[in-house]
């Protein structure tokens, strides 16, 4: 594993990641199964196989750093410390959900945790995140804003315009592109004429870095540098985390996986067994690993039960919170 400038990566941290990755994985599996059971409508976009980005990136942040993510951001919400119960309750559109049950799977938010929400318009949240980063700069509060988005988003005008303005103004933001190889059915090679999305940065004068997004240590290391750079007032970084998307775009995406090979690829790429191997190498016992995994399962089962038991929002609340 790539260990450069990660002296602070010890077994305890890896174990925490290991447990958290299982927490995310089980959350997404519950999300899919409860969607299939009809416990909620719409759809849900799992980040299965992308968990290493969630934990590696979050570990490089302070609690007061702000995070913006997409509909595929359940894992980022969990990594930012949102309450698992309130998240699953939101997926089920319950009153106890983190967004009051009216946002659903694509609109998770907890401002008290500085998780500024997941968004369902591709790339639209990128300038918004940069705007919050500009506020950090104006206030000199030392905070950094991180925005996660996909490879598809890296073709949208809002993304490019933001790279230009954020670099120009040296705002403390980190752009994290989770390149999972697909935008719904469109493979990146049919959408992007360059090899690495990090290369986008060259046209705007900010650093672009590409890492293996399924290696939490690599993500963590690159994030620490990008965050430090932003905190020191040197401006934004574009960090591309190459990863692999789980079977399909969302729980309702038509038919089977668009590409058979890729369908299997994620299993090979699955970051959890890889981290597990690393932990074993470091002499962590099977019991320890198993107990962490079980704990991850337990908290998710509790969250699931909580969500199911929770009440739906009161009908009379439908018109609340349109205006402040």
């Amino acid at each position, binding site marked *: 594993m790539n260990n450069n400038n990660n002296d602070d990566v010890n077994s305890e941290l890896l174990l925490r990641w290991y447990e958290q990755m299982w927490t995310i994985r089980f959350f997404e599996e519950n999300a899919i199964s409860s969607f299939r059971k009809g416990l*909620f*409508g*719409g*759809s849900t976009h799992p980040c299965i196989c992308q968990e290493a980005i969630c934990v590696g990136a979050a570990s490089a942040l302070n609690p007061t750093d702000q995070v913006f993510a997409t509909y595929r951001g359940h894992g980022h919400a969990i990594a930012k410390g949102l309450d698992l119960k309130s998240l699953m309750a939101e997926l*089920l*559109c*319950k009153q106890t959900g983190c967004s009051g*049950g*009216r*946002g*659903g*799977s*694509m*609109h998770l938010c907890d401002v008290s945790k500085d998780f500024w929400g997941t*968004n*369902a*318009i*591709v*790339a639209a949240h990128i300038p918004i995140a940069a705007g919050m980063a500009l506020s950090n700069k104006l206030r000199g509060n030392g905070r950094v804003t991180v925005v996660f988005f996909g490879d*598809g*988003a890296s*073709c*949208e*005008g809002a993304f490019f315009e933001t790279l230009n303005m954020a670099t120009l103004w040296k705002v403390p933001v980190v752009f994290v592109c989770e390149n999972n190889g697909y*935008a*719904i*059915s*469109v493979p990146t090679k*049919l*959408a*992007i004429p360059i090899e690495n999305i990090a290369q986008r940065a060259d046209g705007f004068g900010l650093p672009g870095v590409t890492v293996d997004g399924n290696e939490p240590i690599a993500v963590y290391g690159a994030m620490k540098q990008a965050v430090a750079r932003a905190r020191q007032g040197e401006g934004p970084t574009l960090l591309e985390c190459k990863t692999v998307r789980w079977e399909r775009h969302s729980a309702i995406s*038509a038919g089977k996986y*668009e590409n058979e090979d890729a369908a299997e690829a994620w299993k090979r790429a699955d970051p959890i067994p890889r981290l597990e191997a690393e932990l074993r190498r470091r002499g962590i016992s099977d019991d320890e690993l198993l107990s962490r995994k079980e704990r991850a399962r337990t908290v998710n089962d509790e969250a699931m039960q909580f969500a199911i038991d929770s009440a*739906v*929002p009161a*009908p009379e*609340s*439908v*018109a609340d919170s*349109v205006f402040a």
Partner: protein
Amino acid sequence: MAEAINEAIRMEMRRDKEIVLLGQDIGAYGGTFGVYKGLFDEFGSERVRDGPLCEAATTGFGIGLALAGHPTIVEIEFIDFITLASDALVNQAAKMRYFFGGQVRVPLVVRTPIVSRLGLGAQHSQSLEAWLMHVPGLRVIIPSNGADAKGLMLTALRDGNPTVFIEHVRLYASRGPVPEQDEPIPLGKLRTARHGNDVTIITYGGMVKPCVDAAEQAAKDGIECEVLDLRTLSPLDREGLCQSVRRTGRAVVAHEAVKTGGAGAEIAQSVVEGAFDYLKAPIIRVASKDLPIPTGTLQDLVFPSAVDVEAAVRQVMQ
């Protein structure tokens, strides 16, 4: 209806080799909602062009192809994202022919679905047809069934003008007779979905069926409603709907878009301008509440139902 649209496009693409399709997920995948099933296999990647996620430039490319003489269909995956295509549509496609003194034609068709009531939330459930109606130079088509969808798509592809073709996602699976042959349907001619002499219900797209259902309910109490399916919002068949209201003297306008500033206001005022003296009661609008669309159980409180339409019918009858 999905199959009817697919059939119309396929027929026309076979006839007119210049037609090009642009969008995302329109290749082997067949479009977000599968409307393009099989087109990629039949016409290939040059004419069915799957592309990157950039609605603004995709629409701009579509305009350029159209200017060059290619009838071009751009798919915007949800009408909620028409915002991103709106500059190209409003400031370019709709106006170019005019400000260039008639030198150019823009045979562009933007296909986009309204995806309401699926629980996808505020950013994936809107009905923005009123925006497009307010843009001189655009055609706005919104069919309620397969037969109309086929005939109207054929017309759109031959009309030679910028057109937004709005498809209601709940209708994709709807079945019904669709003419085999090549039968284009003229723009600006409404369809009478049900005849009646007591109340005129004016609607379009996804609300046609709920309105017919409401009419059947009201008929049980002897209230006979005429249900008008506008089929196109631009041009708007003002004379057609006024004719009906002059007969019934009562009108209910129904749509899924939020009420304020919706197409219903234009339709209602068109009735006032053309049939005021015949009105026996105020025109009532049935529409979504003026709210962002929530997910979950709250969603059903926002969208209008057949029951709401029926209630409005009884109200205008008083």
